[in-house]
């Protein structure tokens, strides 16, 4: 009887769990595999997990109030001793990264983080993820079993399970770690001001903008487009007139926006790496030679001080 591949998934973020199942389906490679998951919470969360292709659901009711989700590590460790998983797939949240690291260290396993794609070849699993702040992509092969990995949002799709398999539900008790931090206070924070990674539309001024005061024109365009304002690395394209969280590119944000409009952006690789996933890229620049034009869907070689006001009017009258 062929040994069934054991795959274990966990995330405290329920929306991410479905994508982890998608990743687990890739890891199963169509061969028979047992997919187990740990779920925190009552029957509703267990219900959500049924009929998703998961074979076994370990259920942990609740955590003591002064505990962190990271403290389920001890419980998770117990489960892994029982099922000896080949792959542990953890959601790439802050807690997930901590759990992944502790599990990998204790299992003396391979830790692979923020995986973007996976495939198998004759010798086994191959994974791809970003390095150098997004400046390059690395193809790697884990050499040690088990493999503990973190996967973030938007990398793997969940294919609805074809079979009506009902998962076996196994309740587990919470075993607190020997020494741990005591949670004294917990407060919800207002969401971060700008989240470029999620922005639908982005307007990005570059070196072509001569003065800080001209940013008002950029804000007006952004307003009429309902877009966020981003910018390029301070020197190569801009002047540091906007805060660091607004940088697109190496060690900055990566946008998946529908529309990116570059104003006077010359298009250096350290910046354009962050806009590869944008659906439509528009570049406006006086310099016909600017490299951005080779990476744009639509290019306008003109003075942005004429184009932007005209674009604002066109949008307002439309």
């Amino acid at each position, binding site marked *: 009887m062929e040994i069934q591949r054991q795959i274990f998934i966990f995330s405290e973020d329920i929306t991410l769990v479905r994508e982890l199942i998608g990743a687990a389906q890739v890891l199963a490679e169509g061969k028979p595999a047992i997919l187990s998951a740990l779920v925190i919470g009552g029957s509703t969360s267990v219900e959500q997990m049924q009929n998703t292709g998961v074979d076994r659901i370990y259920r942990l009711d609740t955590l003591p109030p002064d505990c962190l989700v990271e403290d389920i590590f001890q419980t998770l460790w117990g489960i892994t001793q029982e099922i000896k998983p080949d792959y542990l797939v953890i959601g790439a949240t802050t807690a997930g990264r901590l759990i992944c690291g502790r599990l990998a260290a204790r299992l003396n396993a391979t830790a692979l983080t923020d995986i973007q794609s996976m495939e198998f070849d004759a010798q086994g699993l191959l994974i791809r993820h970003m390095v150098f702040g997004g400046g390059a992509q690395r193809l790697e092969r884990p050499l040690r079993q088990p493999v503990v990995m973190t996967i973030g949002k938007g990398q793997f799709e969940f294919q609805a399970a074809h079979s009506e398999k009902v998962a076996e539900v196994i309740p587990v008790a919470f075993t607190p770690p020997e020494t741990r931090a005591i949670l004294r206070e917990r407060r919800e924070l207002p969401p971060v001001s700008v989240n470029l990674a999620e922005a639908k539309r982005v307007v990005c001024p570059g*070196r072509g903008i*001569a003065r800080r005061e001209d940013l008002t024109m950029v804000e007006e365009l952004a307003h009429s487009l309902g877009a966020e304002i981003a910018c390029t690395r301070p*020197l190569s394209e801009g002047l540091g007139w906007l805060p660091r969280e607004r940088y697109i590119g190496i060690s900055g944000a990566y946008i998946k926006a529908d529309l990116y409009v570059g104003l006077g952006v*010359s298009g250096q690789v350290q910046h354009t790496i962050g806009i590869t996933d944008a659906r439509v890229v528009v570049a406006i620049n006086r310099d016909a030679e600017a490299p951005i034009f080779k990476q744009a869907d639509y290019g306008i070689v003109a003075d942005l001080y004429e184009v932007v006001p005209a674009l604002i009017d066109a949008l307002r009258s439309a």
Partner: protein
Amino acid sequence: MKSLSVNEKLALNKYELDEGHPHIVVHQAVCEAECKIRACLFVCPANVYSEQEGKIVADWAGCLECGTCTVACPPQALHWEYPRGSFGIIYRQG
């Protein structure tokens, strides 16, 4: 060889930008009073200086720190100093 615009040439250099600490300040009054030919607009290898509505603007972030403007401009027209230690242009070839 494909010719690059000055901006593109500067973009290939390595800089450590000292955000919020400009090392060049233009004193417009002195420019208007004492300078007729606006030498800064054509002697600077990095095109740091440009003219907008009659005022001289300094895009100090791209400065190559050669100091030519301190010689070409009237004495008090510029407050020009080297960027703070470890900031500014970083030559890798030189």
